[in-house]
């Protein structure tokens, strides 16, 4: 008996090729590829071809766990980068990262350090990747800048408003290059949507929407003391770093959740405004032409938070009502149109005409373009897309939202004086003392 399978020329994919929806998308991509905002790096900066050792950017990695391993691998792909050292307070992570670096270069030269200060003291290192837990980000970035290093730092970059301002001030004063690990700033679909908003193609912009996930604040935990491991295995004092003291407990060793986002969102809450907001609120800041300011009002409203910029543009943080485009969605609405995009790389808009020239789809939020932008700026001394100033304000927007959630009421914020006018309670939550000896 003959197979009853369908004839190959009637396969599902074949019959789907004329779907009008896909057709319109292909139409939108055709023709005007070059109109895409510039994301791809400039080849003139010496990336192409072999790079002599004297022209390479010598780098170190600090705090290389899960996310750090990915970003480190992106740096390792770049021909004008030479990673020479790893610092981590956990021995297993130090060794795993070293092996990754050594495997890339076919030697065993990568040095390891328990204390990041030893790595930062090396004069041959030009730049560092900081991928510790969020607890360390601002302090480690400050130490690196003071040591004359340029910094690519994972997000969230700060724990509160005061740290955000300090980060921006430090990188101004030291003239070092800083790039926050908010790689969606360097992805074509987000850049395209932002350009629609910023160039008036949606009409006058009135609302930007972000999905920070988990509009709640919870402080990191304190667990019963356990016998600490040998300091060479886990240096608990260095792990705690700037976080207020608590006894060793292995449950707190997930740096990803420890002292995250405002110092309030932690082991038991996860997420919080900072975790995703440092991406999606940051994109809204960009779309609203608010890279050097933050919303002036924040109001919790059920499962949403409404904020407003001085320009009148509204920022809505919400978890519901999104098109199925993947994680980290943003939506920008103007008087004549809207656009929405997210991590699968697709872009939906109120009119197909808006999508003409959107360029190739890149989903999965890779960090390649963002890392390249950082490396180019290390050479040119220009400001990367997610520089310290940009990161400062997008983080302040998230921290202020966190404070409004904690206080459970509407707040006003003055982005010139950097205070909540006449609100002593909210003002006290702008910063938090760091454990000795650390400072920003």
């Amino acid at each position, binding site marked *: 008996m003959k197979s009853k399978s*369908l004839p190959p020329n009637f396969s599902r994919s074949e019959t789907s090729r*004329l779907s009008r929806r896909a057709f319109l998308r292909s139409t939108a991509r*055709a023709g005007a590829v070059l109109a895409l905002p*510039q994301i791809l790096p400039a080849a003139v900066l010496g990336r192409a071809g072999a790079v002599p050792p004297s022209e390479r950017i010598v780098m170190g990695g600090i705090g290389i766990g899960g996310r750090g391993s990915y970003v480190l691998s992106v740096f390792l792909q770049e021909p004008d980068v030479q990673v020479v050292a790893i610092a981590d307070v956990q021995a297993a992570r130090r060794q795993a990262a070293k092996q990754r670096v050594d495997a890339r270069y076919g030697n065993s030269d990568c040095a390891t350090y328990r204390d990041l200060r030893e790595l930062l003291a090396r004069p041959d290192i030009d730049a560092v990747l900081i991928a510790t837990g969020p607890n360390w980000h601002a302090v480690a970035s400050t130490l690196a800048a003071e*040591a004359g290093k340029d910094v690519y730092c994972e997000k969230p970059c700060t724990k509160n408003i005061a740290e955000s301002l300090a980060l921006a001030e430090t990188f101004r004063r030291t003239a070092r290059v800083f790039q926050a690990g908010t790689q969606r700033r360097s992805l074509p679909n987000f850049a395209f949507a932002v350009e629609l908003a910023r160039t008036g193609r949606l009409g006058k912009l009135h609302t930007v929407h972000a999905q920070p996930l988990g509009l709640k604040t919870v402080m990191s935990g304190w667990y019963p003391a356990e016998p600490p491991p040998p300091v060479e295995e886990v240096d608990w004092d260095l792990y705690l770093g700037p976080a207020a003291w*608590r006894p060793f407990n292995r449950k707190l060793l997930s740096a990803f959740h420890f002292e995250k986002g405002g110092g309030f969102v932690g082991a038991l809450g996860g997420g919080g405004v900072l975790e995703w907001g440092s991406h999606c609120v940051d994109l809204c800041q960009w779309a609203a032409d608010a890279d050097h300011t933050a919303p002036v009002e924040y109001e919790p409203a059920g499962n949403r938070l409404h904020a407003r910029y001085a320009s009148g543009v509204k920022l809505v943080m919400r978890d519901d009502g999104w098109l199925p485009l993947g994680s980290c969605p943003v939506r920008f609405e103007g008087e004549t149109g809207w656009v929405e995009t997210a991590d699968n790389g697709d872009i939906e808009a109120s009119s197909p005409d808006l999508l003409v020239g959107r360029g190739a789809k890149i989903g999965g939020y890779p960090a390649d373009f963002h890392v390249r932008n950082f490396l180019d700026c290390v050479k*040119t*001394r220009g400001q990367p897309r997610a520089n310290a100033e940009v990161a400062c304000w997008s983080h302040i927007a998230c921290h202020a939202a966190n404070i409004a959630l*904690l206080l459970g009421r509407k707040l006003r914020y003055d982005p010139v004086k950097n205070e909540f006018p006449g609100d002593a309670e909210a003002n006290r939550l702008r910063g938090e003392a760091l454990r000795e000896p650390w400072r920003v």
Partner: protein
Amino acid sequence: MKTFPAFLYRVALGLTLLGGAPNLRLLPAAELPPERALIAVLQSPADPADKALACRQLAIRGTRNAVPVLAPLLADTNLASWARIALEAIPDPAADAALREAAGKLQGRLLVGVLNSLGRRRDPQGVPVLTARLRDADPEVAGAAAVALGHIGNEAAAAALKARLADAPEALDAALGEGCVRAADQLRAAGRTAAALELYEAARAARLPLQQRLEATRGAILARQADGLPLLLEQLRAEDKPAFALGLRVARELPCVAVTEGLIRALDQLPPARQPLLLRALADRPDAAVLPAVLQAARVGAPELRRTAVELLEHCGDATCVPVLLEAATAADRDLARTARTSLARLRAAGVDAALTDQLDRARGAQRAVLLELCGQRRITSALPMVEPALQDPDPAVRRAALQAVSVLGGEAQVTELARLYMETRDEARRAELEGALLEVSGRVGARVVARLLPLVRHTEPAVRITGVHALAGVGGAQALEAVVAATRDPVEAVQDEAVRALSTWPNNWPEDVAVAEPLLTLMKSGAKRAHQVLGFRGYLQYLQADKRLDDPARVERIRELLPRLQWPEEKQAAISALGALRTAAALDLLQTLAPDAAVTEEVWSALVNLVGRDLPGVSPERRREVLREVISRTRNESLRRRAQQALEAIR
């Protein structure tokens, strides 16, 4: 002072238990305990965790009353950091006094913490104790004092820091340099330029680490404003890379047109490798003087400088740059040409579109092709009357560029023209290009263009009729549907096949496309070929899932009606899969009747697990359990069995 039993502390603080461990949970502010209760916790023998949380909450609730209770904790190795969280936040001067007092008593790291807090609070009364600590034997303490003085940044702090530059030990250099620059930056921001400059220059002259000297140099340039140009140029001309790098950064920061002009004059004097980097810095300056310099480099610069200039014009250029960019866009240097085209496509300034279209009639050859491409890329709709004639230009490159532009810009009228050209041409490659443009324009414009496409499906040549079917499928609507249904009866089999394919993916615009249901059912029942029947069935299933007028029970009923006609396992599997997604008891009933068919049994089991694995309206938990037990006992798929088992355990 009243004390509370331990369990009451937890109640008062709102502590919750998790796995026997206190969870440090900062409550909504409205629920925070009163200051009195928090102070009581600190005065009690409570656990360190409770005291830590009390400190954190005093940061919000605390007043001067809490300071005497917090101050002793500054000497507690474990709780000092928590106490400072409160003391740094309490605005009352009593907190400053407590920190100053501790600064005179403590040693080592605890002292460092206190000095850091004095700096964060910018307590001017802290200057004397910090000045004294600048000479502490412990370099960490002295360093913390230096940075704290930098944060305070008044004249007294600056004087103390400057004095220490003369005799500081090497271990203090980095922190002392940081303190000096921080203090000088604050003086500069406060308008005390002379004092700031004095400190910057003292730091530059001192034996400080390179980074801190660079920071001082930056400050010294910025403090001088336009008069800082010579010092800036000194950095840009320095042989060492760090100074040059600093110069590139400060060249972006230092305002004033005279500075811009000075930097432009310096451009030619730099080594060729440095010129593109300075040009990039110049392009970041907002002065009008920048553009002529970049344009000049784009015209006559050395190759790398020229490429950089052409790239930069995208951001700093205007309509006057169009001729220079157009010339570069057709240059023999491919990198330069590509960069120029990119800049032209993205150049946002006013008047650029007009400058490009002005050139369109005069341009010839490669430049004309570039201009046509740009009309599309920049969406210059007003250029369509000039673009359309180029569709028949004798130069193939120009024709292709025109077609690309029409694809983006075209409307109803261009559909007619594209269809006409398509029907006229015999060149296969040309036909493929025209077909692509036709599909793009007609798909974008929509049902309004159906009448303009009908000549294609009535053409004598089958290949043209197929293209017509494709175009109509992209347009949709009742009239297009009618034409494509007619094409399923075309005398040529290939045309029939394409028409059937188009119908099978038709339902994609709601609600106007629901009419496709009947033709699909007809195809399924009486299609000319078995493959047509299968495609009709698949298309119908797709329609069923998408038609928003139907509820799930109605969809189940439609599938039930189809089942007797399904012969191939693939068809039945598709129907079963569709049923598994319909969350209604009717789908469950129907699926269970299909299980005995050995050809699809496993698919039925899988769909059943999907269906009853979570709550199903109108179906009791007991029935869900029965279904899952049956799957567990009868499936041969281990993975599915595990999934069913997990689903069974999850039903409460």
